[in-house]
């Protein structure tokens, strides 16, 4: 493994220190738990937004702390959900008396730890709602949508639920929006070359030079199948067809799209992919309201990418269009 770091024992701490130094005016470390960062500026009387998960997916999650975005983040070890104590501390930092909503990817570890934290917060009288994002259509069939794992769809769910909180909506309304927004978000990914886990220096999987992993997870978990590498056109068509099964039944036709790089896939490739995807969506009668392209949810330096499509409602559209600013994601209408 060739990575620039000090000892492997301190990678998370060193990374968080660097981040807080870079963002010193805006972001601070929780006094209760050094795996928790929070946004310094508080907006009074709103539902708190906690996000979190394992490390190794940067800029998710801490890169989304910001205005009209997340209030606090619970940071786990590499690819491991944060502990209940860490999540609880994040809840404390985000809580302003209106309740807290926690958003995380749907993985056994995250569900277990966030659920425990919620139980602990309950005993303190803090109302907490947990929502596990489950956008990865490759991981379970439609009938088991809530069992799917969470991948880059996190971005849209966090964006919109945080906007709802920033608008002053109640915890109940935020929860309803979170569910709806998660339900309307569909992603699929492929792996092209494994990244390496910085703790053990090992690749997550091995592929032949002409092979890709179709439908893989963002921790390098194997996907649906290994398949030969094909052209961007053919690959995106295959992926789009899988997405189309999920979205074709909607009467609403306005969508937002995210083409997410997993680490080392170049922006050049991501835009070549974008070109194919938008054509396919438009040919099927969808109206692409906005497209974001970049590395939001990574797996270390894995080569690969995911496509995310969210079917908008009027409400979600309004939330999506709200201005938002954070170190690694921003949204601004008209520039």
């Amino acid at each position, binding site marked *: 493994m060739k990575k620039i770091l000090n000892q492997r024992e301190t990678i998370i701490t060193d990374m968080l220190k660097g981040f807080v130094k870079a963002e010193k005016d805006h972001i601070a470390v929780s006094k209760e738990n050094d795996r928790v960062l929070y946004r310094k500026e508080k907006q009074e009387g709103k539902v708190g937004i906690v996000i979190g998960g*394992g490390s190794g997916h940067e800029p998710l999650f801490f890169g989304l702390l910001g205005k009209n975005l997340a209030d606090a983040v619970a940071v786990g070890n590499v*690819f*491991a959900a944060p502990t209940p*104590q860490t999540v609880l501390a994040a809840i404390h930092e985000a809580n302003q008396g209106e309740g807290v909503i926690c958003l995380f990817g749907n993985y*056994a570890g995250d569900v277990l730890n966030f659920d425990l934290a919620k139980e602990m917060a309950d005993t303190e009288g803090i109302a907490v709602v947990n929502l596990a994002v489950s956008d990865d259509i490759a991981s379970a069939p439609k009938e088991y949508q809530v069992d799917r*794992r969470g991948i880059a769809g996190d971005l849209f769910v966090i964006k919109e639920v945080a906007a709802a909180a920033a608008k002053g909506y109640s915890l109940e309304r935020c929860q309803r929006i979170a569910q709806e927004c998660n339900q309307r978000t569909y992603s699929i990914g492929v792996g092209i070359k494994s990244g390496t886990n910085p703790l053990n220096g*090992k690749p997550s999987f091995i592929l032949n030079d002409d092979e890709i992993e179709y439908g893989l997870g963002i*921790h390098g978990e194997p996907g649906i199948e290994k398949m030969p590498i094909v052209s961007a056109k053919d690959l995106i068509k295959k992926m789009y067809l899988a997405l189309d099964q999920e979205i074709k039944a909607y009467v609403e036709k306005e969508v937002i799209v995210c083409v997410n790089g997993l680490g080392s896939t170049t922006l050049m490739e991501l835009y070549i992919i974008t070109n194919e995807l938008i054509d396919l969506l438009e040919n099927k009668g969808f109206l692409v309201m906005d497209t974001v392209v970049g590395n939001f949810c990574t797996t270390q330096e894995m080569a690969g990418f995911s496509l995310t499509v969210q079917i908008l409602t009027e409400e979600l559209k309004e939330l999506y269009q709200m201005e938002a600013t954070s170190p690694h994601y921003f949204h601004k209408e008209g520039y």
Partner: protein
Amino acid sequence: MCNQLTIQQVKDMLLHIADVLIQKEDELGEIDRHIGDGDHGTGMATGARAIQKELKEQESTSVNQVFRQSGIAMMESMGGASGVLFSSLFLALGKIEPEAPEIDVASFSDGVSQAVKDIKIRGRAGLGDKTMLDALEPASVALIENKNSTFVEALAAAKSAAQQGVENTKGYVAKFGRAKFLGERSLGYQDPGATSIAMIINEMYQFVKEEFK
């Protein structure tokens, strides 16, 4: 022949288990890489180091406390699925009534049964779902069957049951944890969490065999 474990013995046993888990980091990681995200070894090693730190730095006034300290150390350091679930094992052993300066086979077996229940409630998995339960539940059954035997006999039976459980996981399709998304592709691989459980129980057995020989 004495058939109870004292505070010091339980401490030594847990420290020994921790040593072994740290040594096995790569092996466990490798197993997780096939059907999971490859971090199970690192997770267990992190928990093991936390146990060592805690037990070396803190006094313990009961066997229960040793287990509780270990469980909390795991829960606060590991994260992930195994952070919650493996700490449940030790936390259940810490809950045995009454608080005592030693533990016998019967209490130990009850504690493990309680752990199986807790883990099932938390994780919603059952036997055959290709999780740590596939090793822990048969081990627990073997312990209860040997409630009135010696620690050496009971743990020998538990160890074999757990190992058989690990073997069995190879034939299961995962329904919980990261491997659940794999479907049939998880067939043929053993479950990492079950492997850790079998390791832990095996090391308990090795420890008592030495201790009571």
